[in-house]
């Protein structure tokens, strides 16, 4: 009789020991639950559970008009709020064949790049904190506040702006918008090398991120891991290069690619992307053409019957908006191909076999934003 009792109390060699890195966990950056099966400290397999922040945005969008959708899309991936709004607006404008003034294209591209830098700054602060370096949190967010000041001055809000409207912008930017950006670039060019001294050169950080979470180019393509995470494995998937939209065709910039596909490669891609975004900003900020800030749009926007597809490069990857319209003012069906949804599910293949501490480093390097996964 005693064997049975002992048997089901002690987990034997073959049974699995499953722990929960559950919804409320500092390293999951939101409400994402990893069911991790462990053998000692090495991860045997990992099952991500999502749905803890599924608000049904696609169902909501079927009942509201296009300008109203903008207020929902920037609450999906709130760290690239402008780029999400720009995706929906471009899709609507292409459907209506509306030609947006040059000024709007320049300002949209500038806002997208500023948003990318702000998102990478926050990723860098959180990634340092994941690996135990608390100072990165204060350095990164201190510089991010400079960008939020620019946003606040022009749009009144720091994080979610709903500023880019179908047809153009909600209103014109603040007069000293360009001056603030030039000040920021001058300031941040001095501060970014500090980031490298603080974390990139640190031997502990390098040992904890080199050779961990290896993802080959084929796995990246098979799992659809786009953005800096995909480019860390050598897959050139930058939509700004493949299908340039807004003012990206008027700007010279090169795509950051790394080939060895581990956590450190993804880290380097994002660090160099911050430098590249500043180059783009410098090329744009001086020659924003004059003109009005929006095209002539009817008050009620009705897309002609049909299907429309628009791809955009957010800070985390490729966001594609697929609108099926049946002619009235609300979309019949709208689907957001969110970058984090595909980036998340590669976790199992690239973390099994590594230690549980590396799991935290890999999930930090994939830079996941959970409401973008669940929508």
């Amino acid at each position, binding site marked *: 009789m005693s064997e049975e009792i002992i048997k089901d*109390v002690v*987990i034997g060699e073959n049974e699995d020991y499953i*722990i*929960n*890195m559950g919804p409320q966990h500092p390293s999951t950056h939101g409400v994402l639950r990893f069911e991790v099966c462990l053998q*000692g400290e090495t991860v045997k397999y990992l099952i991500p559970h999502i749905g803890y922040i599924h608000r049904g945005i696609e169902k909501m969008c079927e009942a509201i008009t296009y300008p109203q959708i903008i207020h929902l899309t920037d609450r999906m991936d709130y760290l690239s709020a402008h780029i999400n709004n720009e995706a929906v607006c471009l899709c609507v404008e292409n459907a209506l064949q509306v030609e947006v003034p040059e000024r709007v294209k320049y300002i949209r591209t500038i806002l997208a790049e500023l948003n990318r830098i702000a998102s990478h700054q926050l990723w860098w602060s959180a990634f340092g904190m994941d690996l135990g370096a608390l100072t990165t949190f204060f350095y990164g967010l201190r510089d991010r506040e400079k960008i939020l000041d620019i946003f606040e001055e022009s749009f009144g809000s720091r994080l979610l702006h709903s500023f880019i409207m179908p047809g153009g912008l909600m209103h014109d930017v603040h007069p000293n918008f360009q001056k603030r950006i030039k000040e920021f670039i001058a300031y941040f060019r001095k501060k970014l090398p500090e980031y490298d001294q603080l974390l990139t050169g640190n031997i502990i950080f390098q040992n904890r991120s080199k050779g961990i979470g290896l993802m080959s180019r084929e796995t990246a393509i098979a799992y659809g891991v786009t953005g800096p995470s995909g480019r860390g494995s050598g897959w050139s998937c930058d939509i700004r290069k493949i299908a340039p939209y807004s003012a990206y065709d008027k700007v010279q910039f090169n795509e950051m690619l790394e080939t060895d596909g581990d956590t450190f490669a993804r880290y380097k891609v994002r660090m160099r992307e911050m430098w590249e975004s500043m180059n783009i900003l410098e090329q744009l900020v001086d020659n924003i053409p004059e003109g009005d800030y929006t095209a002539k749009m009817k008050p009620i926007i009705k897309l002609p019957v049909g299907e429309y597809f628009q791809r955009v490069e957010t800070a985390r990857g490729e966001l594609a908006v697929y609108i099926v319209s049946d002619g009235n003012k609300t979309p019949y069906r709208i689907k957001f191909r969110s970058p984090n949804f595909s980036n998340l599910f590669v976790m199992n293949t690239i973390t099994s076999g590594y230690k549980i501490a590396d799991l935290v480093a890999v999930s930090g390097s994939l830079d996941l934003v959970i409401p973008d996964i669940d929508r």
Partner: protein
Amino acid sequence: MESQSLILFFLVALVLVGGAIVFSTLVAPKSFNLVKSEPYECGIPSEGPAWIQFNVGYYLFAIIYLIFDVETVFLFPWAVVMKQIGLRAFIEIIIFFTVLGLGLLYAWKKGALKWV
């Protein structure tokens, strides 16, 4: 004379620590609910027993650490009296260290220090 200061030292420690604990149990509000006593696992009720057969490597690490911890404890009394005894104590400790050093080398060669 020394023993009084030692007793005083323990008394003060007892009062401070005991006082804090007693005071907080007296004053703090208490609420009991079903879930409070269950283990906290990120908000999800944990399933499956936690008694697992750990890898033996962890046990070895702990034991080796214990040996060298005790070794440093022996150093303290030696350091106090080393001045009076002079050279003989020094040779004494060298022998002590070499014996333990050999033990460490043996453990290292056998791979007990390789992290699982």
